[in-house]
């Protein structure tokens, strides 16, 4: 507490109200699912808060050791249900690693994976931005963002028949091929969506109220972010250019030209909510660039490796792989005993780390800012609780 004169300091001390314990959630419109936060407040100021998770614990890891590998892919969809393609890919990559370098994924499948993942990243960021606008009081971006998101979902529906939980990327390749009509749809979408990003950027990023609600709020210092294991837009918002697509290219990402946007503190302090939001907006443009390049370069050929046929029995071994999902680094630790059913699967979920940093950055914030901070983390409870 800062004060100019001794009198104000004394008065401020006298004005301290009785502490209140406030329970936010698990049913709360701004907690993005079933997050529960216990907030200790002094008037409107947050003294301390503690996130309670687990209200959506769906036993993912138990399922993976109870059903076959191919069936497990279905459960990965429901972790981060906004980027189901990324989850499929992360899990399949871990399983594929067990075969070693002799398993080669066909070129066409790799391209399809990249296209789907990046489109899904755009869809996920659109929802993040739309709901974030709604969290801080702007309804309009939500409606616009959902309109564009529907277009991506329509493309996915043509590709794999589902709008949300795709179960599309399978060990060894992808489930179905995409034809020229679908590629045409994706091309059309790219041409349509490019100008739209700028439009929404204008709509929200330059909005004075929005900037006031997000700039200087929830500043996440780099050291804290790393200590808590934050990744993805949350870490990049603090100015660290850590992106596994660049740093440890998996799949065929080294073939594409794209930048890694980081927070700059352009409207406030480095690592505030606005930076995290802005990173997502810029990432959509980069993802669009990747999709355009991939659609241009997609070769013909097989979509599934011939090495994996019929029942999938991953060789004995243990593997840990990570991919850059839309919320950060998604890792899978897989233990196989050479049977159809995996022995143990552990999912390293980015949201799990991102939300654990909440108490550290919300001390001293106003209660209303807490909503802005939670929104800027863009958590999905499905993968926090697994």
């Amino acid at each position, binding site marked *: 507490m800062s004060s100019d004169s001794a009198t104000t300091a004394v008065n401020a001390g006298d004005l301290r109200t009785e502490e209140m314990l406030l329970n936010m959630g698990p049913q709360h419109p701004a907690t993005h699912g079933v997050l529960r936060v216990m907030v200790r407040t002094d008037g409107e100021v947050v003294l301390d808060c503690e996130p309670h998770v687990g209200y959506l614990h769906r036993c993912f890891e138990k399922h993976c050791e109870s059903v076959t590998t191919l069936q497990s892919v279905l459960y990965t969809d429901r972790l981060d249900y906004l980027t189901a393609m990324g989850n499929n890919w992360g899990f399949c990559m871990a399983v594929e690693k067990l075969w070693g370098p002799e398993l080669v994924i066909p070129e066409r499948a790799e391209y399809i994976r990249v296209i789907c993942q990046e489109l899904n990243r755009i869809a996920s960021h659109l929802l993040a931005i739309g709901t974030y606008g709604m969290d801080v009081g702007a309804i309009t971006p939500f409606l616009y963002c959902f309109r564009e998101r529907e277009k991506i979902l329509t493309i996915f529906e043509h590709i794999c028949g589902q709008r949300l939980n795709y179960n599309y990327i399978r060990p060894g390749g992808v489930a179905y091929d995409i034809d020229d009509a679908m590629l045409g749809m994706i091309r059309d979408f790219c041409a349509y969506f490019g100008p739209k990003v700028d439009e929404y950027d204008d709509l929200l990023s330059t909005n004075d109220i929005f900037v006031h609600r997000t700039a200087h709020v929830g500043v996440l210092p780099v050291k804290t972010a790393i200590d808590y294991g934050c990744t993805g837009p949350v870490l990049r918002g603090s100015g660290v250019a850590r992106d596994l697509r660049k740093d440890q290219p998996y799949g065929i990402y080294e073939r594409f030209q794209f930048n890694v946007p980081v927070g700059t503190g352009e409207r406030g302090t480095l690592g505030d909510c606005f930076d995290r939001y802005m990173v997502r907006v810029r990432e959509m443009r980069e993802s669009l660039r990747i999709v355009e390049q991939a659609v241009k370069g997609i070769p013909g050929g097989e979509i599934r490796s011939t090495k994996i046929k019929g029942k999938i029995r991953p060789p004995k071994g243990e593997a840990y792989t990570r991919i850059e999902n839309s919320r950060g680094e998604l890792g899978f630790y897989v233990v196989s005993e050479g049977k159809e059913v995996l022995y*143990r699967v552990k999912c390293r979920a980015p949201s799990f780390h991102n939300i654990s940093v909440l108490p550290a950055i919300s001390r001293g914030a106003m209660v209303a800012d807490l909503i802005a901070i939670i929104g800027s983390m863009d958590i999905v409870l499905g993968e926090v609780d697994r």
Partner: protein
Amino acid sequence: MAMDRTTLVAEVEKAFGARITEKDLAGFEPFLRCEPATWPELARFLKERCGLDMLCCLTGVDRGKGQGLEAIYNVEACDAKRCGISIRIRVPLDNPVIPSVEKVWQTADWHERECWDLVGIRFEGHHNLVRILCAEDWEGHPLRKDYKSPDRYHGIKNNVV
């Protein structure tokens, strides 16, 4: 500053010698093994001397068949171009205790709670080792291989198939 995995492992071995009980760098997942008592010191060494400032993943595995439980720590650097290493620690099923490293990496706090909740490894020195995912009054550790799902929970039938 260790840059590649060989240098990293060499440096760790120089400092810890025989306290690194097993080394396997040939598999998909190169790992070092140590005793639980060595772990806090090794963790601090990895973070402060080797620059591995991120604890990415903590996996608890029930190895079954009388082999006890195992905790697998994937430790990485924030600079993702650099190599990480995984550390395995095995503990007996009847006394699964590993010293907590939440003071080294903050993120270990939640990871250790999750590992306690699902696998039942007790992390000594953790400030608040309570269940994180399952309900507070849940019984047993679901990812143990001998776990049986409860027939009823608070009077609600659970096993229906």
